[in-house]
């Protein structure tokens, strides 16, 4: 109970310090909105194919970039050390940090989704599945961002490191191209990507059809990736945070 209160305290403080600031909110909204509008203006009928991928991409880039900024900033300012000196287990610190990052990206992606629904007429065939996809995506990418950025010292190092997996993930996860249209050799890679399952969940939530699996399989896989990231996060954070 006490650890939960501490996790919430870390999250509240981070929202207050970083995520509640107007530039971040607009950054999280403007980039994906402009991208989807561009696709919408080019192809009014086909934009729905890429909209779920764009939202998932927002989650991936928003969360990992924010984690890179927050963690490296706190490492340099020495404030991350404050958390390490407090009676907190490493997973509790990761949970606190991930919760605020996830809340930020969940908030921006919900506003984005609402905007597409209201202004572009994007359907929401299965709201529960859509919500589940957003939550699992936000959680997984937040933890992933924290794990990657805690291993380095500078923002540019974190961004460079993360681009090594973010861009390949974009390519193999059906963000711009449905899985059914991907070449055969790329599909096994797609199944190994957490982004694929989030994109498919969002696609299922909006259009009601998914490329390769049912909602149960997709959410099981996405939840599996989330727990895998969480398992990895504690030891990595413990080893690298005070360096």
């Amino acid at each position, binding site marked *: 109970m006490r650890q939960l209160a501490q996790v919430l305290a870390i999250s509240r403080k981070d929202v207050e310090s970083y995520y509640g600031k107007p530039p971040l909110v607009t950054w999280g909204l403007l980039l994906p909105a402009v991208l989807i509008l561009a696709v919408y203006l080019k192809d009014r009928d086909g934009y729905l194919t890429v909209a779920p991928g764009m939202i998932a991409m927002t989650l991936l880039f928003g969360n990992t970039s924010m984690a890179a900024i927050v963690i490296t900033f706190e490492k340099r300012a020495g404030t991350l050390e*404050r958390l390490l000196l407090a*009676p907190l287990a490493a997973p509790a610190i990761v949970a606190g940090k991930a919760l605020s990052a996830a809340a930020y990206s969940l908030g921006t992606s919900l506003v984005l989704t609402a905007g597409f629904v209201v202004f572009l007429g994007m359907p929401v065939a299965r709201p529960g599945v859509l919500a589940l996809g957003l939550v699992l995506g936000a959680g997984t990418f937040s933890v992933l961002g924290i794990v990657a950025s805690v291993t380095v010292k500078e923002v540019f190092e974190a961004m460079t490191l993360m681009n090594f997996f973010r861009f390949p993930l974009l390519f193999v996860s059906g963000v711009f191209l449905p899985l059914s249209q991907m070449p055969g050799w790329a599909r096994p890679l797609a199944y190994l990507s957490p982004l694929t399952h989030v994109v498919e969940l969002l696609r299922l939530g909006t259009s009601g059809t998914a490329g390769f699996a049912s909602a149960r399989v997709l959410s099981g896989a996405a939840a599996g990736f989330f727990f895998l990231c969480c398992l990895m996060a504690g030891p990595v954070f413990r080893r690298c945070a005070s360096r």
Partner: protein
Amino acid sequence: MPRRREETPVPREGPEGQIAVRARGLRKHFGAIVALDGVSFDGPRGGVLAYLGPNGAGKTTTVRILCGLAERDGGEISILGRDVRSDPLFVKSHIGVVPEASNLYPELGCRRNLEYLGELYGLPRAERRGRAVELIEHFGLTEKAEQPFGSLSRGMRRRLAIAAAIVHRPEVLFLDEPTTGLDVPSAKSLRQLIRRTVVQGTTVFLTTHNLFEAEELADEVAVLVGGRIIAGGTVAEIRARVPRARGVSLRLSEPVAEDVLRSACPAIRSAGLEDGCWQLDVTDLHETLGQLVEFCRRTGLRVNEIGTRQTTLEEAFLSLLTETTKPTARGAS
């Protein structure tokens, strides 16, 4: 002569309950560099242990290991009878740390910083709010309570950093170079605050290279050089370990040339004149006084002022340092 491992001073075994911080044979390497090489010391409960050493001696490394921020390669440590490795949450809830760089949240106000840290240490809401107000008042920051930490002066930041470290009323407080970079009045006021904290029953582990500060605050001293403890004990014991000349200050009724004075008093090792007052380093106090009395009687000079000067901790430290570093150069963190 290089020091042998057996020569590392091990503190006298005190009753377990009276020791708040204990280290035995602490070792740490950074690659080929030996940062700590079998360090042992005891910090008395409710007192101040000054951990002295030149830059790079391994002081900060020791603090980081004791607080659980760094892993040790060998040796044993205990804080309030527990090891931070096996019982980190207990140790962390009973210690407070003021690192060398004041590391609070720059964007948060002073009060919010303290409340947040209180929350992390599990203080209930009403208690942490009350504690924040109490500490802000105690540390003279009432007018800056809502001002962001990042906009405070260095002295104020330091004060708030100490307030933050004791927000949860820790039993042991680690202070890493607390007055570094502060002006004289700020450093003095900070030392007064530290003394008040000790009076309230907190054990202080003070790492510093400011010998004056250590002399003013410490009950026990451990001197760390090149990753090894070269001396330990009370300030008086450390001073007494140095077989050095005694100091005499002397003001005579008429000016005297140095060579005349020195030839009349062979016990004088060195002499310097400061504001008309001789500062003498002598080999034997008794002998010197006899020679001076005889010199004055013979020349008809009068002694207007005379006094003896105690060996300062700084002099003792420098003497120990010279003694240790003369024969061999050692690497450290």
